């Protein structure tokens, strides 16, 4: 993968030449141009058309998080393009592949979309700007040093002569891209740091955006799918003859050992026929597992001798033995489904040994590889059409639905087949946020200072399920997200032990927005609140004393406390809670204000959230992500859960797996305190503080500690 434009460009050119690419304009990219918009290519990231339209190529995926706009801002700023002319388009995964991944990593997760692309996309913009200036200077016969660029215009300063980008781009595209360029300093930024409007908004208001589920192709068929309800179970038999006469039905396809599909003219016909298809499942040994058994399994991890080490310092055993007093608590969270509003779907077409797919994916490269594998063809026989995602949240990093679509489409050569999962299938065949419990023990001295803290996680490992090769001697590093030495914020605790007893179940697990920072921050921040209460100290002051070695965490917490008016009087019946965490390269803290009626009705009235992501590309979009992260995070804390009975998921839709709606939405006030010098993530970090801030406020209101999540239907009535 290329991280600098000079090496990326060179290796690409070598690759293109070796492939006999035929560089017709000297430095253009014939295959990419064939895929994308026509125009003058300046380097590989920008295309400029005669009317100044500036198309920025985007390798990551847009799933709502605003990355498409943010990446375009980064390129356009270095290009000195007028934002009014800027559009964005995806790089096709097969074009990236054919060019030795000149556009870098397509994977979009872990809040990495911008922070891991920032160096090379900015250089890409700067390369384009240098080429435009050079071409203009050449045309005027003046030194480049006398020319400047701004708002898509090159100006020759001494004479005042001007050329629009659209007028000079074709000439510029013929030049050799410079090997080295210098990117702007933050003081020179014109677009980075500005809240420009999203590029994808207009089409999302008119219904024009074509999500993958909306793809319509000539001669297209549709498929509905059923997977064995019990994870690990298999398809035993089915009776296709019962449905083949139904209207529109073409064929029943056995997709794999545990999956069957019905293909029809229309999807609703396929779904209706699937519901009528007699299917016998061999449910296998997991068919007796339920949530109670899983809870019991996890409990065995809380005191187990063996556990994977996250981090430790000092002597925790001595600290706890010698403590004047101890505080201990056990917390637990359930499985969570992503429940993207657009259910899993993919359209595939098998034709003449080649496979073509239309998909919303968090990883275009991985979708291409999955399609090739499922079709049994080489990578270069795959074409991928990337569509905006109707939500991702980690779910669409998995390629299960792509493989299925390809396998089904192979039965219908020359005809595209669109596979759509029903909501029920989507709810019951996810890659769930892992079920987790945690036992926390703190030692205090006679003055109420923390002398030691032990946090023992017991729960399922994402890596053990999804990527066992990434386990390090039985340790899943991801289990400690938010709790690394850089992240957790309480370096001043003199004796510390954080470890993880891996307890795996038969339920598939995966990356869910915020991943394990969700549980870890909730466990730690609710527990620290408990310890502060035991020490009879103010929760904010108590934390401050533990954060003396974490100035960035502390600054963010101070910012949120100030904005929220921590310590100032509140209206009668309103109570506050606070929480902080570090994750995905950023620092976050939140204060929640809640009221709980005598009947136990919770109202979340106000959230103040502060974040330091280093640099901010688009403050409006960072605010939108923070607001949204509270909805997603609080849904899981207040209502949502996936439970298991008879080996299968109980919940099937939004009626029994409730999520937050507008009526539940608290006012969220965002405080951005970017301290500069680093690029932190945005989409996920703040989700971790949503739950604990609210739960700590509930304790302040009711004296009740909610340790088993979700909150609903627990009783908050005054006792």
């Amino acid at each position, binding site marked *: 993968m290329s991280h600098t434009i000079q090496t990326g460009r060179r290796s690409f050119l070598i690759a293109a030449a070796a492939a006999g690419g035929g560089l017709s304009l000297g430095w253009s990219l014939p295959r990419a141009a064939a895929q994308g918009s026509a125009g003058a290519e300046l380097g590989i990231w920008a295309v400029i058309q005669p009317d100044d339209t500036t198309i920025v190529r985007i390798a990551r995926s847009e*799933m709502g998080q605003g990355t498409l706009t943010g990446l375009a801002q980064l390129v356009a700023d270095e290009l000195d393009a007028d934002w009014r002319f800027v559009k964005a388009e995806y790089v096709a995964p097969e074009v990236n592949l054919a060019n030795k991944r000149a556009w870098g990593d397509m994977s979009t997760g872990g809040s990495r979309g911008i922070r891991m692309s920032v160096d090379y996309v900015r250089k890409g913009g700067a390369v384009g700007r240098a080429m435009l200036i050079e071409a203009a200077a050449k045309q005027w016969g003046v030194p480049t040093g006398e020319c400047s660029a701004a708002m898509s215009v090159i100006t020759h300063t001494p004479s005042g002569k001007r050329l629009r980008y659209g007028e000079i781009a074709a000439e510029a595209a013929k030049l050799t891209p410079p090997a080295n360029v210098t990117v702007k300093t933050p003081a020179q930024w014109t677009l980075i740091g500005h809240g420009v*409007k999203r590029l994808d908004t207009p089409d999302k208001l*008119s219904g*024009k955006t074509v999500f993958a589920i909306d793809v319509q192709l000539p001669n297209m068929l549709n498929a509905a799918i059923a997977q064995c309800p019990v994870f690990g179970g298999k398809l035993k038999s089915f009776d296709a003859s019962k449905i083949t006469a139904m209207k529109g039905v073409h064929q029943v396809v056995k997709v794999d050992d545990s999956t069957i599909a019905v293909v029809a003219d229309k999807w609703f016909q396929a779904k209706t026929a699937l519901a009528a298809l007699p299917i016998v499942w061999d449910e296998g040994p997991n068919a007796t597992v339920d949530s109670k058994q899983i809870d019991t399994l996890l409990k065995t991890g809380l005191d187990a001798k063996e556990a994977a080490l996250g981090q430790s310092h000092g002597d925790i055993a001595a600290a706890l033995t010698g403590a004047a007093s101890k505080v201990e608590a056990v917390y637990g969270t359930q499985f969570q489904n992503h429940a993207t*509003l657009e*259910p899993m779907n993919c359209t595939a077409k098998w034709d003449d040994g080649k496979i073509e797919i239309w998909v919303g994916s968090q990883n275009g490269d991985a979708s291409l590889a999955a399609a090739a594998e499922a079709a049994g063809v080489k990578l270069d026989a795959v074409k991928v059409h990337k569509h905006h995602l109707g939500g991702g949240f980690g779910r669409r990093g998995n390629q299960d639905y792509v493989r299925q679509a390809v396998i089904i489409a192979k039965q219908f050569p020359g005809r595209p087949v669109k596979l759509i999962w029903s909501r029920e299938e989507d709810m019951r065949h996810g890659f769930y946020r892992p079920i987790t419990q945690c036992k926390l023990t703190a030692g205090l001295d006679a003055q109420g200072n923390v002398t030691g803290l032990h946090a023992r996680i017991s729960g399922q490992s994402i890596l053990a399920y999804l990527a066992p090769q990434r386990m390090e001697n039985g340790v899943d590093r991801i289990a400690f997200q938010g709790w690394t030495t850089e992240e957790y914020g309480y370096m001043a605790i003199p004796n510390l032990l954080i470890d993880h007893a891996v307890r795996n179940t038969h339920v598939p697990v995966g990356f869910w927005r915020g991943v394990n920072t969700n549980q870890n921050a909730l466990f730690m921040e609710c527990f620290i609140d408990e310890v502060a209460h035991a020490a009879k100290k103010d929760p904010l002051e108590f934390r401050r004393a533990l954060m003396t070695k974490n100035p960035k965490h502390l600054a963010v917490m101070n910012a949120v406390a100030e904005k929220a008016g921590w310590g100032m009087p509140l209206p009668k019946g309103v109570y506050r809670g606070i929480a902080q965490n570090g994750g995905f390269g950023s620092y976050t803290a939140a204060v929640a204000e809640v009221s709980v009626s005598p009947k136990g009705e919770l109202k979340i009235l106000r959230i103040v959230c502060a974040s330091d992501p280093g640099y901010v590309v688009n403050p409006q979009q960072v605010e939108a992500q923070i607001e949204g992260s509270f909805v997603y995070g609080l849904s899981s804390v207040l209502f949502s859960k996936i439970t298991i009975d008879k080996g299968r998921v109980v919940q099937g839709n939004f*009626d029994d797996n409730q999520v937050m709606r*507008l009526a539940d*939405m608290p006012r969220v006030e965002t405080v951005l305190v970017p301290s500069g010098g680093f690029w932190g993530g945005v989409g996920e970090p703040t989700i971790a503080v949503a739950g604990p801030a609210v739960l700590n406020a509930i304790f302040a209101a009711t004296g009740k500690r909610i340790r088993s999540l979700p909150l609903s239907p627990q009783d908050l009535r005054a006792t």
Partner: protein
Amino acid sequence: MMKLNVNGKIYDVDADPDTPLLWVIREWVGLTGTKYGCGIAECGACSVHIDGVVARSCSVAAGSVTAAKITTIEGLSPDGLSHPVQVAWMQHDVPQCGYCQSGQIMAVAALLHDKPKPTEADVAENITNICRCGTYQRIKSAINTAAALSVASPATGKA
């Protein structure tokens, strides 16, 4: 063969009359701005107007609305952007992934048609569509803006 009036155009549709309106709109008529989210009228992604009243089209049989005027997101305004709700949505840059927004916009347009100046309680009670990205805060602000715009030019407030 059924006849359906969608956005002022008559379509001949050979679907079974009990096929949900959502799927007839998407698969037979070919308009895909109306989305499938749950199929049980929980999420609102499929919201359309039937004779001016908002409905969750996944739970309405197409055969029951052959005499009605159906409006989808594609028919809300001539250019797809000029209905006061769309104008307000643009101003507040509401969408994130955008998948629920057709339904949100249709639900809000109907609410403002019935109650040009909705209270906070009206909004909470009537706008129950699910947004997993969590754009609710901006939706609330945009509703206020749309209400102000609708009052300023009532002629465009209908759909």
